[in-house]
């Protein structure tokens, strides 16, 4: 097994851990914060933000560890996810403001949309260069 492959797997594992830590509290904290004082909620959000910064740095490290083709696939997937996120997010928000949808537009839905879009774009990109 190549050292490049090993390094990439290590970076990927670390990134997965950081993403797991960062995304889980979105639901976790929102549920437990109902029973907490407001200062505890602020603390919870602060911890979540700090972990989020760790995730961003880990994502950067992972991206720098990729070779040029893998980086191209990742960048294309990120570009598509960002585009869908911006267009989908603004459309979704406008639907909420115009009361077209019966429920509130939650930020979690947008995060989910970006994540799913990135995942699909990454898989499609990987298959294209196989």
């Amino acid at each position: 097994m190549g050292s490049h492959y090993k390094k990439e797997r290590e970076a990927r594992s670390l990134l997965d851990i950081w993403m797991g830590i960062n995304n889980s509290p979105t639901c976790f904290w929102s549920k437990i914060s109902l029973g907490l004082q407001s200062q505890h909620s602020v603390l919870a959000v602060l911890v979540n933000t700090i972990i989020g910064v760790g995730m961003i740095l880990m994502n950067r490290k992972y991206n720098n560890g990729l070779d040029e083709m893998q980086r191209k696939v990742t960048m294309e997937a990120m570009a598509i996810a960002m585009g869908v996120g911006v267009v989908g997010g603004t459309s979704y928000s406008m639907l909420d403001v115009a009361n077209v949808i019966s429920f509130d537009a939650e930020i979690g839905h947008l995060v989910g949309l970006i994540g799913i879009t990135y995942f699909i774009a990454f898989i499609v990109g990987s298959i294209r260069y196989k």
Partner: protein
Amino acid sequence: MKNRIKVLRAERNMTQEDLAIEVRVSRQTINAIEKGKFDPSLPLAFKISRFFGLAVEDIFHYD
């Protein structure tokens, strides 16, 4: 862009993984370059040509 990497590799009895390790990229990248699905950057093309002891234009051909 076409290339002779597969032939040169076969002449030296090398696998894609072996070449990938030598030029520090993934095996998938070597596979994509061989199939003409991905064009390597100039530094990577020079790395590959230096490894085979040939000039870049002896390995890569623009269609």
